[in-house]
């Protein structure tokens, strides 16, 4: 379904969506992040990349699985905690961040479907916004199979045409939202369609950064596990968790029991994000650590995204949002690392 929504009608439409929990990019001090908002007046077309992607809504940093407490009769009373039942809409999702969720979907389905992830995923509607101008200097979505107007994972894609939005509804969920306020929308004219095509074509030209010959990289990486390359590339890495926590596709987690009281026993089992760049990520209970240094941890990050994930799901585990580049405290640039990988030994 394709429609036109004037900017004046935008808030009228959103008012009709009151029963949903609504998230949109919000600026606090100088930081942009997705937050729950009341009724957005409009969505600024030129907001930069949010620090955290909508990953934090679908796969929150802390998820309570269950509560437990000692009980006289049963020994231990266990209560499952599932995410709140409330449909949500995320406005202004960048096409790369939406694509990221389609990649993470692979991980949480299969032999075991993760009920926590899917509960949130299925009750969340993603409304994307074409990146007319790149939201970061480090965007490189085109190199990894995405684009500034990619529709992957989105329910609706909005494209800003100055005084109006071009609305492309891509799923049933998207159509439903539009049908809730039919009178807000108009049929697109031939000119609108032309404008859309022009803007979307132009949005691609604006992406300046790219990884050349990326197709060669997975195979190349396969032979590089035991090379000194990683020692050299990781020299400046400080082993913080910024690149992975900010990554819209990183999904590793840890499960811990948080004990509030030991007698009588009471506490929660929680899942939290975990991070392959931390020394305790692979620490065995024997005291042995198979990834003992930062070289092996940087290697893991690159190999997981550009070799293992490709072997498993035929896609790079990277959507080119550029967050790990812009926010790296020491300027490690994944594009530069991959360029060097491609040319290694040539």
């Amino acid at each position, binding site marked *: 379904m394709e429609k036109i929504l004037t900017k004046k009608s935008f808030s009228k439409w959103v008012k009709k969506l009151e029963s949903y929990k609504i998230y949109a990019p919000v600026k606090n*001090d*100088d*930081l942009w992040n997705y937050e729950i908002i009341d009724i957005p007046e409009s969505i600024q077309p*030129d907001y*930069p990349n949010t*620090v*955290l992607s909508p990953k934090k809504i679908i796969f929150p*940093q*802390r998820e309570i699985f269950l509560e437990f407490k000692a009980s006289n009769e049963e020994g231990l009373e266990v209560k499952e905690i599932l995410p709140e039942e409330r449909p949500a809409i995320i406005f202004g999702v960048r096409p790369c961040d939406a694509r990221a969720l389609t990649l993470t979907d692979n991980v949480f389905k299969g032999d075991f479907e993760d009920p926590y992830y899917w509960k949130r995923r299925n009750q969340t509607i993603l409304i994307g916004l074409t990146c007319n101008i790149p939201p970061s*200097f*480090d965007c490189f979505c085109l190199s990894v199979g995405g684009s500034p107007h990619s529709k992957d994972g989105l329910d609706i894609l909005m494209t800003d045409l100055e005084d109006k939005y071009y609305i492309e509804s891509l799923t049933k969920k998207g159509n439903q939202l539009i049908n809730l306020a039919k009178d807000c929308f108009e049929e697109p004219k031939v000119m609108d369609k032309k404008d859309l095509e022009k803007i979307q074509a132009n949005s691609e030209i604006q992406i300046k950064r790219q990884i050349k010959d990326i197709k060669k990289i997975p195979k190349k990486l396969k032979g590089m596990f035991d090379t000194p390359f990683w020692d050299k590339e990781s*020299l*400046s890495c*400080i*082993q*913080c*968790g*910024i690149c992975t*926590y*900010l990554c819209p596709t990183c999904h590793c987690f*840890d499960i*811990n029991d*948080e004990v509030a009281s030991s007698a009588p026993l009471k506490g929660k089992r*929680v899942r*939290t994000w*975990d*991070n392959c760049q*931390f*020394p*305790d990520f692979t*620490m065995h*209970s*024997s*005291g042995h*650590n198979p990834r003992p240094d*930062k070289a092996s941890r940087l290697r893991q990050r690159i190999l997981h995204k550009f070799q293992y994930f490709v072997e498993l799901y035929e896609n790079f585990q990277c959507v080119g949002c550029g967050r790990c*580049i812009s*926010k790296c*405290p*020491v*300027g*490690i*640039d994944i*594009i*530069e690392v991959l360029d060097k990988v491609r040319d290694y030994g040539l």
Partner: protein
Amino acid sequence: MVKVEDIKKEAKRILKEGKVKYIIGYKKSTNGLMSVPAFIESPEDVENLIWDPTCVYNLTRFLVDEKRRKAREKNPDERPVGIVVKGCDSRAIIVLLQEKFINRENIYVLGISCETTGVLDEKKLLKKLNGKKAEKVEYDEKDNFIITTLDGKSKVPADEILAERCLECRANFPVINDILFGEKVDRKLDNRFKSLEKIESLSKEKRWGFWKEQLDKCIRCYACRSVCPMCYCDECVVDTINFAVTADTTAEEKAQRIKWVEKSPTTSENFVYHFVRAIHLAGRCIDCGECERVCPMDIPLRFLNKKMEKEAKELFDYDAGFDPDQPSLVSCFKDEDPEDFIR
């Protein structure tokens, strides 16, 4: 004015003569503006070295890595490591020497005086340019930065985009060095704790509200800890690893290991993490401001450490990082130390 050619000349000399095994300095990043740490091993690579207001990093943090790497090597290269330091960074070396974490003979210090200027705050610069990309930032020797963008050049008063710490700097000159670049220039500083005034004037409740809001943003990426040259503990209280585990440790002993901080980024756990760090930096932090610079969530961490610096000064007349022979604050006492807080 410091000339980068002079630094390159010395770097080339010490590498050629084999005086150092490598040099830790600055080179241009791939974004074309800011610098990144450079590890220069051969005289040919010296050409990559730069020195400009984007050289923000406190490179002494990499001396911690060097020590660890060396400890793992069977036949380590015993030559010193060359390291480029600004005044603030040089004070970190003093603390590391004082705590006997590094030895003087293991480092060759290329000290650079910031003279009348300092380094940039990239976030301030981005804000100033309203999202435009800067290509070059130069100091004009008259308290201004000249910023080159695609639209041309513009002049910005230095104070507006200098790093916060540079505005309260008391060590624009390296306190330790083997070779020095630039001159010693005295700088007037009325109040070294000026940035604290606003937050100190808040009521207790407001201060609590401020810190709760700030620390609730924390995603526990530990970048502040990871970038800090003073956070060199083998085992950090927030990590779940335990180096005390050996082949003989029983399952029960492992299970009973105390977990001081949960992984959850909740208010209480975030407070424990940041306050443990602040307390451990009291009398050690030299205000390089790296923790605040790297924070992806813009938490004003420098306030915490600055407050500790002020406490150390006011209670014990202690200044970190100026004298390697001074005992460290938390491992010494003097007869005249105040004790009125003991009740």
